[in-house]
Protein backbone atom coordinates (compact mmCIF):
# COMPACT_ATOMS: atom_id res chain seq x y z
CA UNK A 1 0.00 0.00 0.00
CA UNK A 2 1.02 3.55 -0.67
CA UNK A 3 2.91 5.47 2.00
CA UNK A 4 0.64 8.38 2.88
CA UNK A 5 2.73 9.91 5.65
CA UNK A 6 3.90 12.78 3.48
CA UNK A 7 0.34 13.90 2.78
CA UNK A 8 -1.05 16.59 5.11
CA UNK A 9 -4.06 15.68 7.27
CA UNK A 10 -5.60 18.91 6.15
CA UNK A 11 -4.60 21.88 4.09
CA UNK A 12 -3.60 25.03 5.97
CA UNK A 13 -2.40 28.50 5.19
CA UNK A 14 -3.86 31.24 3.02
CA UNK A 15 -5.37 30.44 -0.36
CA UNK A 16 -6.63 26.98 0.45
CA UNK A 17 -7.94 25.56 -2.81
CA UNK A 18 -11.52 24.35 -2.94
CA UNK A 19 -10.33 21.18 -4.63
CA UNK A 20 -6.84 19.74 -4.73
CA UNK A 21 -5.80 16.64 -6.63
CA UNK A 22 -2.47 15.60 -5.17
CA UNK A 23 -0.53 12.96 -7.10
CA UNK A 24 -3.78 11.27 -8.03
CA UNK A 25 -3.48 8.04 -9.96
CA UNK A 26 -6.02 5.64 -11.35
CA UNK A 27 -5.71 2.54 -13.43
CA UNK A 28 -7.98 -0.25 -14.58
CA UNK A 29 -5.81 -3.33 -14.65
CA UNK A 30 -2.89 -2.54 -16.93
CA UNK A 31 -4.48 0.62 -18.30
CA UNK A 32 -3.25 3.76 -16.60
CA UNK A 33 -6.08 6.28 -16.83
CA UNK A 34 -4.71 9.05 -14.60
CA UNK A 35 -1.02 9.41 -14.22
CA UNK A 36 -0.01 11.47 -11.22
CA UNK A 37 -2.56 14.23 -11.57
CA UNK A 38 -1.97 17.48 -9.71
CA UNK A 39 -4.69 20.07 -10.03
CA UNK A 40 -5.89 22.87 -7.76
CA UNK A 41 -9.21 24.60 -8.19
CA UNK A 42 -9.77 27.85 -6.33
CA UNK A 43 -13.02 28.74 -4.62
CA UNK A 44 -15.57 30.05 -7.15
CA UNK A 45 -13.36 29.14 -10.04
CA UNK A 46 -14.82 27.63 -13.21
CA UNK A 47 -12.40 25.10 -14.64
CA UNK A 48 -13.09 23.26 -17.87
CA UNK A 49 -11.46 20.04 -18.94
CA UNK A 50 -11.14 19.31 -22.62
CA UNK A 51 -9.29 16.54 -24.39
CA UNK A 52 -9.61 13.53 -26.64
CA UNK A 53 -11.84 10.57 -25.87
CA UNK A 54 -10.32 8.25 -23.29
CA UNK A 55 -7.94 10.87 -21.89
CA UNK A 56 -9.43 10.48 -18.40
CA UNK A 57 -11.71 13.52 -18.19
CA UNK A 58 -14.76 11.69 -16.85
CA UNK A 59 -12.59 9.71 -14.47
CA UNK A 60 -11.43 12.95 -12.82
CA UNK A 61 -15.02 14.00 -12.11
CA UNK A 62 -16.12 10.54 -11.03
CA UNK A 63 -13.30 10.30 -8.52
CA UNK A 64 -14.22 13.69 -7.10
CA UNK A 65 -17.86 12.54 -6.79
CA UNK A 66 -16.51 9.38 -5.07
CA UNK A 67 -18.12 7.19 -7.72
CA UNK A 68 -14.70 5.72 -8.40
CA UNK A 69 -12.07 4.70 -5.88
CA UNK A 70 -8.73 6.40 -5.98
CA UNK A 71 -5.69 4.44 -7.15
CA UNK A 72 -3.10 6.61 -5.47
CA UNK A 73 -2.61 10.08 -4.06
CA UNK A 74 -5.19 12.11 -2.17
CA UNK A 75 -8.02 14.44 -3.15
CA UNK A 76 -8.79 17.33 -0.80
CA UNK A 77 -12.01 19.29 -0.82
CA UNK A 78 -12.29 22.55 1.07
CA UNK A 79 -9.05 21.78 2.84
CA UNK A 80 -10.08 18.35 4.11
CA UNK A 81 -9.22 15.00 2.60
CA UNK A 82 -12.05 13.47 0.59
CA UNK A 83 -10.72 10.09 -0.39
CA UNK A 84 -8.96 9.50 2.91
CA UNK A 85 -9.61 10.17 6.53
CA UNK A 86 -7.29 10.99 9.37
CA UNK A 87 -6.76 8.17 11.82
CA UNK A 88 -4.16 8.19 14.58
CA UNK A 89 -2.38 11.09 12.95
CA UNK A 90 -2.17 9.52 9.50
CA UNK A 91 -4.35 9.27 6.43
CA UNK A 92 -6.11 6.00 5.74
CA UNK A 93 -8.62 5.22 2.97
CA UNK A 94 -11.98 6.73 3.85
CA UNK A 95 -14.72 4.41 5.07
CA UNK A 96 -18.33 4.62 3.87
CA UNK A 97 -19.36 6.85 6.73
CA UNK A 98 -16.58 9.36 6.22
CA UNK A 99 -17.19 9.40 2.46
CA UNK A 100 -20.83 10.15 2.98
CA UNK A 101 -20.01 13.21 5.02
CA UNK A 102 -17.16 14.32 2.79
CA UNK A 103 -19.07 14.14 -0.46
CA UNK A 104 -21.89 16.32 0.82
CA UNK A 105 -20.18 19.41 -0.54
CA UNK A 106 -20.09 18.02 -4.08
CA UNK A 107 -22.83 17.82 -6.67
CA UNK A 108 -22.77 16.33 -10.13
CA UNK A 109 -24.72 16.43 -13.38
CA UNK A 110 -24.41 13.58 -15.81
CA UNK A 111 -24.41 13.24 -19.56
CA UNK A 112 -27.63 11.22 -19.45
CA UNK A 113 -29.30 13.27 -16.69
CA UNK A 114 -30.11 10.22 -14.52
CA UNK A 115 -33.29 11.75 -13.18
CA UNK A 116 -35.45 9.44 -11.08
CA UNK A 117 -38.12 8.39 -13.59
CA UNK A 118 -40.78 7.54 -11.01
CA UNK A 119 -40.74 11.04 -9.54
CA UNK A 120 -41.89 14.37 -10.87
CA UNK A 121 -39.43 17.17 -11.53
CA UNK A 122 -40.33 18.68 -8.18
CA UNK A 123 -39.99 15.37 -6.32
CA UNK A 124 -36.61 14.80 -7.95
CA UNK A 125 -35.43 18.09 -6.48
CA UNK A 126 -36.96 17.48 -3.05
CA UNK A 127 -35.65 13.95 -2.56
CA UNK A 128 -32.15 14.79 -1.37
CA UNK A 129 -33.09 17.78 0.77
CA UNK A 130 -35.79 15.78 2.59
CA UNK A 131 -34.01 12.42 2.91
CA UNK A 132 -30.43 13.58 3.37
CA UNK A 133 -30.52 17.13 4.68
CA UNK A 134 -33.60 16.53 6.81
CA UNK A 135 -35.56 19.52 5.53
CA UNK A 136 -39.30 19.55 6.12
CA UNK A 137 -41.51 18.93 3.11
CA UNK A 138 -42.44 22.61 2.99
CA UNK A 139 -38.86 23.88 3.15
CA UNK A 140 -37.72 21.38 0.54
CA UNK A 141 -40.59 22.35 -1.74
CA UNK A 142 -39.77 26.04 -1.46
CA UNK A 143 -36.14 25.40 -2.21
CA UNK A 144 -36.97 23.10 -5.13
CA UNK A 145 -39.48 25.54 -6.62
CA UNK A 146 -37.03 28.39 -6.37
CA UNK A 147 -34.41 26.37 -8.25
CA UNK A 148 -36.86 25.08 -10.83
CA UNK A 149 -37.83 28.71 -11.37
CA UNK A 150 -34.19 29.60 -11.86
CA UNK A 151 -33.67 26.91 -14.50
CA UNK A 152 -36.95 27.82 -16.18
CA UNK A 153 -38.73 24.59 -15.34
CA UNK A 154 -41.28 25.75 -12.80
CA UNK A 155 -44.27 25.26 -15.10
CA UNK A 156 -43.25 21.63 -15.67
CA UNK A 157 -42.62 20.85 -12.02
CA UNK A 158 -45.31 18.19 -11.81
CA UNK A 159 -44.19 16.32 -14.93
CA UNK A 160 -42.33 13.05 -14.83
CA UNK A 161 -39.00 12.95 -16.71
CA UNK A 162 -40.48 10.80 -19.50
CA UNK A 163 -42.63 13.80 -20.46
CA UNK A 164 -39.69 16.19 -20.68
CA UNK A 165 -37.24 16.87 -23.49
CA UNK A 166 -33.55 16.18 -22.95
CA UNK A 167 -32.79 19.85 -22.38
CA UNK A 168 -35.61 20.10 -19.87
CA UNK A 169 -34.45 16.98 -18.06
CA UNK A 170 -30.92 18.30 -17.84
CA UNK A 171 -32.17 21.57 -16.36
CA UNK A 172 -34.13 19.65 -13.74
CA UNK A 173 -31.01 17.60 -13.02
CA UNK A 174 -29.05 20.79 -12.44
CA UNK A 175 -31.75 22.03 -10.05
CA UNK A 176 -31.71 18.67 -8.26
CA UNK A 177 -27.96 18.91 -7.72
CA UNK A 178 -28.12 22.54 -6.59
CA UNK A 179 -30.86 21.73 -4.09
CA UNK A 180 -28.20 19.99 -2.01
CA UNK A 181 -26.32 23.32 -1.78
CA UNK A 182 -22.98 21.91 -2.94
CA UNK A 183 -19.83 23.97 -2.87
CA UNK A 184 -18.47 22.21 -5.93
CA UNK A 185 -20.49 21.35 -9.00
CA UNK A 186 -19.36 18.84 -11.59
CA UNK A 187 -20.70 18.75 -15.13
CA UNK A 188 -19.76 15.81 -17.31
CA UNK A 189 -20.64 16.54 -20.93
CA UNK A 190 -24.10 17.66 -19.91
CA UNK A 191 -24.96 18.75 -23.44
CA UNK A 192 -23.58 15.76 -25.36
CA UNK A 193 -26.83 13.81 -25.35
CA UNK A 194 -28.91 16.81 -26.42
CA UNK A 195 -30.32 17.88 -29.75
CA UNK A 196 -28.41 20.91 -31.04
CA UNK A 197 -31.40 23.24 -30.73
CA UNK A 198 -31.78 22.69 -26.96
CA UNK A 199 -28.10 22.89 -26.01
CA UNK A 200 -28.43 26.62 -25.49
CA UNK A 201 -31.08 26.34 -22.80
CA UNK A 202 -28.72 24.20 -20.69
CA UNK A 203 -25.56 26.20 -21.33
CA UNK A 204 -27.44 29.37 -20.42
CA UNK A 205 -28.30 27.90 -17.04
CA UNK A 206 -24.66 27.03 -16.41
CA UNK A 207 -23.58 30.46 -17.61
CA UNK A 208 -26.01 31.96 -15.08
CA UNK A 209 -24.42 29.91 -12.33
CA UNK A 210 -21.00 31.38 -13.01
CA UNK A 211 -22.30 34.90 -12.52
CA UNK A 212 -24.92 34.51 -9.83
CA UNK A 213 -23.67 31.93 -7.38
CA UNK A 214 -20.62 31.32 -5.36
CA UNK A 215 -19.91 27.92 -6.72
CA UNK A 216 -16.75 26.16 -7.70
CA UNK A 217 -17.27 24.33 -10.95
CA UNK A 218 -15.45 21.66 -12.84
CA UNK A 219 -16.81 20.90 -16.27
CA UNK A 220 -16.00 18.46 -19.04
CA UNK A 221 -17.24 19.55 -22.43
CA UNK A 222 -16.70 19.12 -26.14
CA UNK A 223 -18.15 22.55 -26.86
CA UNK A 224 -15.08 24.67 -27.28
CA UNK A 225 -16.97 27.92 -27.81
CA UNK A 226 -18.84 27.48 -24.57
CA UNK A 227 -15.68 26.50 -22.68
CA UNK A 228 -13.92 29.58 -23.99
CA UNK A 229 -16.83 31.82 -23.01
CA UNK A 230 -17.36 30.86 -19.44
CA UNK A 231 -14.22 29.25 -18.03
CA UNK A 232 -11.68 30.91 -15.83
CA UNK A 233 -9.22 28.23 -16.82
CA UNK A 234 -9.09 25.43 -19.33
CA UNK A 235 -7.15 22.19 -18.87
CA UNK A 236 -6.26 20.11 -21.87
CA UNK A 237 -6.02 16.45 -20.93
CA UNK A 238 -3.99 13.97 -22.86
CA UNK A 239 -3.27 10.38 -21.86
CA UNK A 240 -4.27 10.84 -18.23
CA UNK A 241 -2.19 13.97 -17.74
CA UNK A 242 -2.73 17.69 -17.99
CA UNK A 243 -0.87 18.47 -21.17
CA UNK A 244 -1.51 22.18 -20.94
CA UNK A 245 -3.62 24.56 -18.89
CA UNK A 246 -4.21 28.25 -19.25
CA UNK A 247 -6.80 31.00 -19.42
CA UNK A 248 -9.30 30.19 -22.18
CA UNK A 249 -8.14 33.02 -24.41
CA UNK A 250 -4.54 31.98 -24.17
CA UNK A 251 -5.18 28.26 -24.56
CA UNK A 252 -7.51 28.58 -27.52
CA UNK A 253 -5.71 31.33 -29.43
CA UNK A 254 -2.18 30.51 -28.52
CA UNK A 255 -1.79 26.84 -27.55
CA UNK A 256 1.79 25.97 -26.71
CA UNK A 257 1.82 22.21 -26.82
CA UNK A 258 1.84 20.42 -30.13
CA UNK A 259 -0.85 18.02 -28.92
CA UNK A 260 -3.12 20.87 -27.89
CA UNK A 261 -2.69 22.46 -31.28
CA UNK A 262 -3.50 19.19 -33.02
CA UNK A 263 -6.55 18.57 -30.87
CA UNK A 264 -7.92 22.07 -31.35
CA UNK A 265 -7.46 22.04 -35.09
CA UNK A 266 -9.05 18.58 -35.31
CA UNK A 267 -12.04 19.83 -33.32
CA UNK A 268 -12.30 22.93 -35.49
CA UNK A 269 -12.18 20.83 -38.65
CA UNK A 270 -15.01 18.66 -37.32
CA UNK A 271 -17.25 21.64 -36.59
Amino acid at each position, binding site marked *: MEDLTSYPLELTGPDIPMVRFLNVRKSYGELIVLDNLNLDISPNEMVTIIGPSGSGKTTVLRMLMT*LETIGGGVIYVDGKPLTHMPKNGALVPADARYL*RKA*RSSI*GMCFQHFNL*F*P*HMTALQNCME*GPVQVLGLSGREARERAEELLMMVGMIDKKDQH*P*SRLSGGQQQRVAIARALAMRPKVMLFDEVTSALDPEVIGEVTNVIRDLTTRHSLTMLMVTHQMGFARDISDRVCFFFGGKIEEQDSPDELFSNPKSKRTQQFLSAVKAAD
Partner: protein
Amino acid sequence: MQWDWEFTAEILPKMLWATVNTLMAAGIGYVIAAVIGLLFALAQRTPFRSLTFIVREVVEFIRSTPLILQIFFVYYVGPEYGLWLSPWVAGMIAIGLHYAAYLSEVYRGGIESIPKGQWEACTAINLTMAQSYRRIILPQAIPPSIAGMGNYLVSIFKDTPMLSVIGVEELMQAANAVGGQNYRYLEPYTIVGVIFLIISLTAASAIRGFEGWIRRKLGME
Protein backbone atom coordinates in the same frame (compact mmCIF):
# COMPACT_ATOMS: atom_id res chain seq x y z
CA MET B 1 -72.59 -41.45 -12.65
CA GLN B 2 -75.09 -38.61 -12.77
CA TRP B 3 -74.36 -35.10 -11.49
CA ASP B 4 -76.36 -34.63 -8.29
CA TRP B 5 -77.47 -31.03 -7.79
CA GLU B 6 -78.97 -31.69 -4.43
CA PHE B 7 -75.71 -33.11 -3.13
CA THR B 8 -73.89 -30.15 -4.72
CA ALA B 9 -76.06 -27.66 -2.84
CA GLU B 10 -75.56 -29.57 0.36
CA ILE B 11 -71.74 -29.58 0.25
CA LEU B 12 -71.26 -26.17 -1.36
CA PRO B 13 -71.26 -24.10 1.87
CA LYS B 14 -68.63 -26.35 3.36
CA MET B 15 -66.52 -26.08 0.21
CA LEU B 16 -66.83 -22.31 0.13
CA TRP B 17 -65.79 -22.16 3.72
CA ALA B 18 -62.71 -24.22 2.92
CA THR B 19 -62.01 -21.81 0.05
CA VAL B 20 -61.52 -19.08 2.63
CA ASN B 21 -58.79 -21.20 4.21
CA THR B 22 -57.19 -21.84 0.84
CA LEU B 23 -57.12 -18.13 0.10
CA MET B 24 -55.71 -17.45 3.52
CA ALA B 25 -52.98 -20.06 3.03
CA ALA B 26 -52.08 -18.59 -0.35
CA GLY B 27 -52.17 -15.04 1.02
CA ILE B 28 -50.08 -15.68 4.11
CA GLY B 29 -47.66 -17.89 2.19
CA TYR B 30 -47.28 -15.21 -0.42
CA VAL B 31 -46.60 -12.41 2.05
CA ILE B 32 -43.92 -14.56 3.69
CA ALA B 33 -42.47 -15.36 0.28
CA ALA B 34 -42.52 -11.72 -0.82
CA VAL B 35 -40.70 -10.49 2.29
CA ILE B 36 -38.17 -13.31 2.58
CA GLY B 37 -37.66 -13.29 -1.17
CA LEU B 38 -36.69 -9.63 -0.99
CA LEU B 39 -34.26 -10.40 1.82
CA PHE B 40 -32.80 -13.25 -0.26
CA ALA B 41 -32.39 -10.90 -3.21
CA LEU B 42 -30.78 -8.12 -1.17
CA ALA B 43 -28.52 -10.56 0.65
CA GLN B 44 -27.11 -11.63 -2.69
CA ARG B 45 -26.14 -8.05 -3.43
CA THR B 46 -24.23 -7.28 -0.23
CA PRO B 47 -20.47 -7.03 -0.36
CA PHE B 48 -20.22 -9.95 2.08
CA ARG B 49 -19.12 -12.75 -0.17
CA SER B 50 -19.89 -15.61 2.20
CA LEU B 51 -23.44 -14.38 2.85
CA THR B 52 -24.03 -14.04 -0.88
CA PHE B 53 -22.69 -17.56 -1.40
CA ILE B 54 -24.81 -19.14 1.33
CA VAL B 55 -28.02 -17.46 0.21
CA ARG B 56 -27.33 -18.41 -3.42
CA GLU B 57 -26.91 -22.03 -2.42
CA VAL B 58 -30.05 -22.03 -0.27
CA VAL B 59 -32.08 -20.52 -3.11
CA GLU B 60 -30.64 -23.03 -5.56
CA PHE B 61 -31.40 -25.90 -3.19
CA ILE B 62 -34.99 -24.84 -2.64
CA ARG B 63 -35.57 -24.39 -6.35
CA SER B 64 -34.15 -27.81 -7.16
CA THR B 65 -36.26 -29.87 -4.77
CA PRO B 66 -40.02 -30.51 -4.81
CA LEU B 67 -42.33 -28.43 -2.67
CA ILE B 68 -44.09 -31.52 -1.37
CA LEU B 69 -40.80 -32.80 0.04
CA GLN B 70 -40.14 -29.48 1.72
CA ILE B 71 -43.61 -29.55 3.29
CA PHE B 72 -43.06 -33.07 4.64
CA PHE B 73 -39.61 -32.14 5.82
CA VAL B 74 -40.67 -29.15 7.88
CA TYR B 75 -43.65 -30.98 9.34
CA TYR B 76 -42.23 -34.44 10.03
CA VAL B 77 -38.49 -33.91 10.44
CA GLY B 78 -38.88 -30.77 12.54
CA PRO B 79 -40.20 -32.70 15.58
CA GLU B 80 -37.16 -34.99 15.52
CA TYR B 81 -35.18 -31.90 16.44
CA GLY B 82 -37.72 -30.71 18.95
CA LEU B 83 -39.45 -28.38 16.53
CA TRP B 84 -43.16 -29.17 16.82
CA LEU B 85 -45.18 -27.15 14.41
CA SER B 86 -48.90 -27.16 13.69
CA PRO B 87 -49.85 -28.09 10.13
CA TRP B 88 -50.64 -24.47 9.38
CA VAL B 89 -47.37 -23.09 10.67
CA ALA B 90 -45.29 -25.84 9.04
CA GLY B 91 -47.20 -25.40 5.80
CA MET B 92 -46.76 -21.64 5.74
CA ILE B 93 -43.04 -21.91 6.45
CA ALA B 94 -42.53 -24.49 3.72
CA ILE B 95 -44.58 -22.81 1.04
CA GLY B 96 -43.35 -19.33 2.04
CA LEU B 97 -39.69 -20.34 1.78
CA HIS B 98 -40.29 -22.24 -1.42
CA TYR B 99 -41.77 -19.27 -3.17
CA ALA B 100 -39.32 -16.88 -1.54
CA ALA B 101 -36.62 -18.63 -3.55
CA TYR B 102 -38.52 -18.03 -6.78
CA LEU B 103 -39.52 -14.47 -5.94
CA SER B 104 -35.95 -13.57 -5.01
CA GLU B 105 -34.99 -14.29 -8.61
CA VAL B 106 -37.77 -12.02 -9.83
CA TYR B 107 -36.61 -9.22 -7.54
CA ARG B 108 -33.01 -9.76 -8.55
CA GLY B 109 -33.90 -9.43 -12.20
CA GLY B 110 -35.82 -6.25 -11.46
CA ILE B 111 -33.02 -4.71 -9.40
CA GLU B 112 -30.37 -5.62 -11.95
CA SER B 113 -32.41 -4.02 -14.71
CA ILE B 114 -32.03 -0.59 -13.10
CA PRO B 115 -29.35 1.39 -14.95
CA LYS B 116 -26.11 2.15 -13.14
CA GLY B 117 -26.80 5.85 -13.59
CA GLN B 118 -29.63 5.64 -11.06
CA TRP B 119 -27.22 4.41 -8.39
CA GLU B 120 -24.77 7.12 -9.31
CA ALA B 121 -27.48 9.76 -9.02
CA CYS B 122 -28.25 8.37 -5.55
CA THR B 123 -24.61 8.78 -4.56
CA ALA B 124 -24.48 12.25 -6.06
CA ILE B 125 -27.32 13.42 -3.82
CA ASN B 126 -25.77 11.43 -1.01
CA LEU B 127 -28.57 8.97 -0.22
CA THR B 128 -27.61 6.07 2.01
CA MET B 129 -27.66 2.55 0.62
CA ALA B 130 -30.94 1.84 2.41
CA GLN B 131 -32.52 5.06 1.15
CA SER B 132 -31.34 4.32 -2.37
CA TYR B 133 -33.05 0.94 -2.34
CA ARG B 134 -36.20 2.10 -0.64
CA ARG B 135 -36.77 5.38 -2.45
CA ILE B 136 -35.16 4.95 -5.85
CA ILE B 137 -34.24 1.40 -6.83
CA LEU B 138 -37.08 -0.80 -5.56
CA PRO B 139 -39.87 1.55 -6.69
CA GLN B 140 -38.44 1.18 -10.19
CA ALA B 141 -37.55 -2.50 -9.92
CA ILE B 142 -40.90 -3.70 -8.68
CA PRO B 143 -43.34 -2.51 -11.39
CA PRO B 144 -41.65 -4.51 -14.16
CA SER B 145 -41.52 -7.48 -11.76
CA ILE B 146 -45.24 -7.40 -11.06
CA ALA B 147 -46.11 -9.72 -13.94
CA GLY B 148 -43.57 -12.26 -12.70
CA MET B 149 -44.64 -11.81 -9.10
CA GLY B 150 -48.27 -12.22 -10.14
CA ASN B 151 -47.54 -15.52 -11.86
CA TYR B 152 -46.14 -16.84 -8.62
CA LEU B 153 -49.18 -15.60 -6.71
CA VAL B 154 -51.32 -17.77 -8.97
CA SER B 155 -48.85 -20.66 -8.63
CA ILE B 156 -48.78 -20.51 -4.86
CA PHE B 157 -52.56 -20.55 -4.87
CA LYS B 158 -52.58 -23.61 -7.12
CA ASP B 159 -50.01 -25.34 -4.89
CA THR B 160 -52.01 -24.94 -1.67
CA PRO B 161 -53.70 -28.35 -2.18
CA MET B 162 -50.35 -29.90 -1.32
CA LEU B 163 -50.87 -28.64 2.21
CA SER B 164 -53.69 -31.18 2.54
CA VAL B 165 -51.05 -33.91 2.90
CA ILE B 166 -50.15 -32.61 6.35
CA GLY B 167 -53.78 -31.92 7.25
CA VAL B 168 -54.25 -28.21 6.62
CA GLU B 169 -58.00 -27.77 6.24
CA GLU B 170 -58.08 -26.20 2.84
CA LEU B 171 -60.18 -26.83 -0.22
CA MET B 172 -58.59 -30.11 -1.29
CA GLN B 173 -58.75 -31.53 2.21
CA ALA B 174 -62.44 -30.55 2.39
CA ALA B 175 -63.16 -32.22 -0.94
CA ASN B 176 -61.39 -35.38 0.15
CA ALA B 177 -63.32 -35.42 3.41
CA VAL B 178 -66.70 -34.82 1.79
CA GLY B 179 -65.98 -37.39 -0.89
CA GLY B 180 -64.88 -40.01 1.62
CA GLN B 181 -67.94 -39.56 3.81
CA ASN B 182 -70.41 -39.81 0.93
CA TYR B 183 -68.56 -42.08 -1.46
CA ARG B 184 -69.08 -39.41 -4.14
CA TYR B 185 -66.10 -37.61 -5.59
CA LEU B 186 -67.46 -36.15 -8.81
CA GLU B 187 -69.15 -33.13 -7.27
CA PRO B 188 -66.56 -32.14 -4.66
CA TYR B 189 -63.60 -32.40 -7.05
CA THR B 190 -65.50 -30.59 -9.81
CA ILE B 191 -66.34 -27.81 -7.38
CA VAL B 192 -62.67 -27.58 -6.41
CA GLY B 193 -61.72 -27.29 -10.07
CA VAL B 194 -64.29 -24.62 -10.81
CA ILE B 195 -63.33 -22.57 -7.77
CA PHE B 196 -59.64 -22.73 -8.69
CA LEU B 197 -60.42 -21.80 -12.27
CA ILE B 198 -62.51 -18.78 -11.31
CA ILE B 199 -60.05 -17.48 -8.75
CA SER B 200 -56.98 -18.00 -10.95
CA LEU B 201 -58.51 -16.19 -13.89
CA THR B 202 -59.76 -13.36 -11.71
CA ALA B 203 -56.38 -13.00 -10.05
CA ALA B 204 -54.52 -12.98 -13.35
CA SER B 205 -56.62 -10.17 -14.75
CA ALA B 206 -56.48 -8.25 -11.46
CA ILE B 207 -52.68 -8.45 -11.58
CA ARG B 208 -52.61 -7.09 -15.12
CA GLY B 209 -54.83 -4.21 -14.04
CA PHE B 210 -52.63 -3.56 -11.01
CA GLU B 211 -49.47 -3.52 -13.11
CA GLY B 212 -50.98 -0.94 -15.45
CA TRP B 213 -52.16 1.16 -12.55
CA ILE B 214 -48.74 1.15 -10.85
CA ARG B 215 -47.01 2.10 -14.08
CA ARG B 216 -49.39 4.98 -14.65
CA LYS B 217 -49.08 6.09 -11.05
CA LEU B 218 -45.29 6.17 -11.33
CA GLY B 219 -45.47 7.90 -14.70
CA MET B 220 -43.61 5.09 -16.42
CA GLU B 221 -45.78 3.96 -19.31
